[in-house]
């Protein structure tokens, strides 16, 4: 049960009445704008859903998990996601009681 871009296009076509071309462009542009914002150093806040937050990581010693060999992990910038209260609540409510 994996949601893909194709499913999103289908949904916008069904529910809002966009044609397939418009729906496909919109889905592409939506994710592209988030990427553009992040590569401009700007965090993205989607209320009700969550925040995409940039973090700069220092270099650190690591290991190649296959060979066990010690390697230096270079400094890097990473994207993290902090789910919002509403999303966390919905996830817990709906499947929190699943054993």
């Amino acid at each position, binding site marked *: *049960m*994996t*949601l*893909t*871009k194709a*499913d*999103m296009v289908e*949904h*916008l076509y069904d*529910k*809002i009445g*966009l044609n397939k071309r*418009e*729906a496909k*462009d*919109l*889905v592409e*542009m*939506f*994710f592209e*704008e*988030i*990427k553009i*914002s*992040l*590569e*401009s*150093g*700007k*965090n*993205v*806040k*989607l*209320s*009700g*859903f*969550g925040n*995409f937050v*940039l*973090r*700069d990581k220092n270099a650190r010693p690591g290991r190649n998990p296959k060979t066990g060999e010690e390697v230096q992990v270079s*400094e*890097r*910038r*990473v*994207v*993290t*996601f902090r*789910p919002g209260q*509403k*999303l*966390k609540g*919905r*996830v*817990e*409510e*709906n*499947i*929190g*009681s699943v054993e």
Partner: protein
Amino acid sequence: MTKSEIVEILSKKQNNLNHQDLEASVKMLLNLMSSRLSDGGRIEVRGFGSFSLHYRKARRGRNPKTGEQVALRSKYVPHFKPGKELRERANESRAKVTIQS
């Protein structure tokens, strides 16, 4: 950048859809994503990343105000793994721009 700013930018970058349709579409996309995760599903968007659920074991916690012990049930929390393209673009931007607070 916020949801309404995304709608503004999309509105400027394309001519097919009016503001109202764009706003409704963006909200609907986010709602669809939230629903899928709430139903226990995953989301995969190539080049952007994937969302899945991570299990958290039941544990004893404490009320930080009173110090009182409380039992916390097991639960699932949303997790995001950035895709290759997003990972690379974010990392390459490190040399060019600083992170805005």
